[in-house]
């Protein structure tokens, strides 16, 4: 009897320690010692309210520990920290659980990953809910791991990798739902977003982002003989618990640079979808780039924030799009509120009153090549922006880089890249980057900090008044969030293609970022 009571007490104490119920994620902003979801909070601010490292002390930041990844290649992981354990992902969806104090490995999980897998091998992170860690793999499986031991609880096939589907983004854990997006839009696949039961791995719903047949919603925006392909969902979206709406961006249509066989707007590619998480139905949609022929995926992080406009309290969603425009929408109904370019762009004469681009006729790809700004994945891409509720500024790492776009013949073969052309970026010293601070409600530029090369990594803002980021040349740096003045930098020795985050253990604040072979964690002395 006593043993039983003891066991129950011990078990509940242990399990109470490690449990990350949905409610804790909803309140994540108030407990900044942890980082419980990909973008820090469901609103995706990637903002930490820790302020131990601030404008005055940041100059003393130095390495605390480093974890070296087992796999060599592009590492785009954004760590999760929950109750003293850090979870990072490596190639193919490999997961390592590390002691957040010392960096020592606690467990690892290696997914099924033969060399013949189709798709990109990098992985941006895990989701956690209750006692389970969820990861999507290159093989297009969703795997649930026991958070304490790393042992597989369940492993389900999301889709067939041989058809081009693979998973690169971090899943999103909602109450009773693990939301998973897929990649493969360039491999000729039909995009979708899935929701799984966290306990059993059973699929609850699937939302296809492009219609299959003539009866389905959006079908009237695809005429011509071409296949309805694209709309991949490979970057983690956001969630408003109050409105109970899930926000997720969709990718480009295929073939990428030749739209001849798919005239029409091609819904719901290059869009933001507001989705009911219960059944996966679309509440509203906004299409950033109708009939895209420049590979301008709208797989960017949607940032949810509130503001007062014209005396009214508004619930808004901001997205700095790969097409070079920064958009603010009403997140209750998808209405266009404001939009402005944040980089040099030469393809549109602005946006109309509904936010639809006014196309310039000479901006489409041609056989001989057309120079257009922005280039492919240059202005903005998957890497995260950050929103600081303190400064009310939206910060992003932007690339100033055009590309010559070529239109080519289309040749569909299952799971091969389905491109219909190509591109050549403006390179070397004719391209560069900048951290830009925009007034969140309007996109108006407040300051910029120039970067030598176009960036490929994201930003973090903190209550210490700082913006952290990484350069393509390897500098991990901190800027003054109000002025953009550089306050600290450290050369990590490899291009930084990841997002920074911050956490605390035993009252000490850490800032972490991945760069090629290592996860680098910094703290004050």
């Amino acid at each position, binding site marked *: 009897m006593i043993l039983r009571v003891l066991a129950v007490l011990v078990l509940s104490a242990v399990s109470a320690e490690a449990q990350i119920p949905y409610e804790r994620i909803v309140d994540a902003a108030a407990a900044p010692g942890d980082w419980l979801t990909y973008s820090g909070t469901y609103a995706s601010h990637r903002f930490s309210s820790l302020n131990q490292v601030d404008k005055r002390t940041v100059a003393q930041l130095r390495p605390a520990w480093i974890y070296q990844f087992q796999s060599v290649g592009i590492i785009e992981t954004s760590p999760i920290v929950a109750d003293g354990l850090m979870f990072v992902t490596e190639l193919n969806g490999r997961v390592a659980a590390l002691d957040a104090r010392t960096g020592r490995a606690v467990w690892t999980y290696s997914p099924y990953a033969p060399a013949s897998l189709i798709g990109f091998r990098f992985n941006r992170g895990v989701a956690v809910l209750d006692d389970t860690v969820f990861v999507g793999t290159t093989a297009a499986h969703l795997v649930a791991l026991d958070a304490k031991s790393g042992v597989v609880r369940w492993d389900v096939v999301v889709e067939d990798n041989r058809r081009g589907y693979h998973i690169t983004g971090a899943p999103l854990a909602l109450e009773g739902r693990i939301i998973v997006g897929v990649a493969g839009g360039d491999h000729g696949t039909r995009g979708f977003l899935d929701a799984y039961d966290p306990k059993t791995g059973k699929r609850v719903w699937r939302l296809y982002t492009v219609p299959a047949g003539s009866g389905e919603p959006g079908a009237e925006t695809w005429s011509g003989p071409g*296949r309805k392909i694209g709309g991949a969902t490979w970057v983690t979206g956001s969630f408003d618990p109050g409105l109970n709406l899930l926000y997720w961006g969709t990718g480009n249509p295929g073939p990428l640079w030749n739209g001849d066989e798919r005239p029409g707007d091609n819904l719901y590619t290059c869009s933001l979808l507001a989705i009911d998480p219960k059944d996966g139905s679309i509440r509203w949609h906004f299409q950033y780039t109708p009939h895209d022929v420049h590979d301008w995926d709208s797989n960017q992080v949607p940032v949810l924030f509130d503001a007062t406009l014209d005396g009214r309290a508004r619930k808004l969603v901001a997205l700095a799009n790969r097409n070079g425009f920064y958009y603010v929408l009403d997140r209750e109904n998808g209405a266009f509120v404001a939009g402005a370019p944040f980089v040099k762009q030469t393809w549109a004469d602005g946006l109309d009153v509904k936010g639809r681009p006014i196309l310039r006729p000479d901006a489409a790809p041609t056989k001989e090549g057309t120079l257009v700004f922005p280039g492919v994945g240059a202005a903005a891409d998957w890497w995260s922006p950050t929103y600081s509720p303190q400064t009310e500024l939206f910060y992003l790492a932007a690339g100033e880089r055009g590309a010559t776009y070529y239109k080519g*013949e289309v040749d569909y073969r299952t799971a091969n890249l389905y491109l219909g052309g*190509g591109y050549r970026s403006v390179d070397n*010293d004719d391209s560069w980057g900048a951290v830009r601070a925009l007034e969140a409600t309007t996109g108006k530029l407040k300051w910029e900090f120039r970067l*030598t090369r176009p960036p490929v990594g994201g930003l973090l803002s903190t209550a210490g008044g700082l913006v952290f980021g990484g350069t393509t040349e390897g500098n991990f*740096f901190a800027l003054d969030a109000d002025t953009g003045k*550089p306050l600290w930098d450290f050369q990590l020795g490899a291009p930084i293609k990841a997002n920074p985050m911050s956490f605390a253990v035993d009252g000490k604040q850490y800032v972490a970022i991945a760069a090629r072979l290592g996860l680098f964690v910094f703290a004050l002395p």
Partner: protein
Amino acid sequence: MAFSDFCPKRRRCDSCSMKRKLTLILLTSLVLTFAAMLFAFGVGVGHYEIFPYSLIESVRHSVYLAIRADATEGKALFDNDCARCHGIDGSGGEGPRLDKPALSRAADDDALRSIIRDGIGVMRPVRQTTTAEQNNLIAYVRALGRSAASAPVAGNVEEGRALYDGLGCASCHIVNGVGEGVGPELTHVGAMRGREYLHEALTNPTAALPRGTLEVAEGLSEFLPVRVTTLDGREIRGARINEDTFTIQLRDADNQYYSFRKSDLRALEKGGPTSLMPSWEGRLTDAQMDDLIAYLLSLNGRS
């Protein structure tokens, strides 16, 4: 025409073995011809291919090249997509010369196809090409190699070597281990660059920066001329070696190395005022220029 016409005994027989043999031969030939056509030209239904891609392509390749490859089509493709780096007529430029009978990285057509399709090193394919386009490009590139082999080269190599020594080029360049490494090594320049590029580099070096000579500065222009002014007013002109958002590394004309934090500089001018290398425009006769270029074109590696 009947089988009896072929019969040596001029007889009609139901069980004639000749009839059976001829039928067998005819049927076999038909089947083989059909199979050969299938493999040669592929079977397409709409956007799909019935046979596995790799199998059909590997067999199609030789037949296609022999029958259907078109060097004129290849030239159109080359001029549009390849010439900007490899030069008109493959004479070289940012990318290596292709007008040579033997290409060191494309010894056979399979290797050449692989490069066109997937790129190599810093070269990314400009766009996805179909097999037919690859065949045409292969035919054109090989034709370039054949015609260049017989083309006469203006200028005298030995006179050019004497000029190279006399003008002091070795104070900034290394050839076969001799000289100073301020500017790019020239040991292989004849394999990398053509006449047109070399002429521009000699007469307007600021506009003709080298490519593919520097591994360390990925994504940055190589040997970019820079001028820095330190906080205490010192001005240094150099060729940039590397740079990041906070620091810059360079060499001056005396091969002196410098490294600065940008916050320790009063001014940083990139791309100017001019290249460290002087321009020889107007300082050499046309004949001397031809000789010097002929010498450089002869530099194909350690002799």
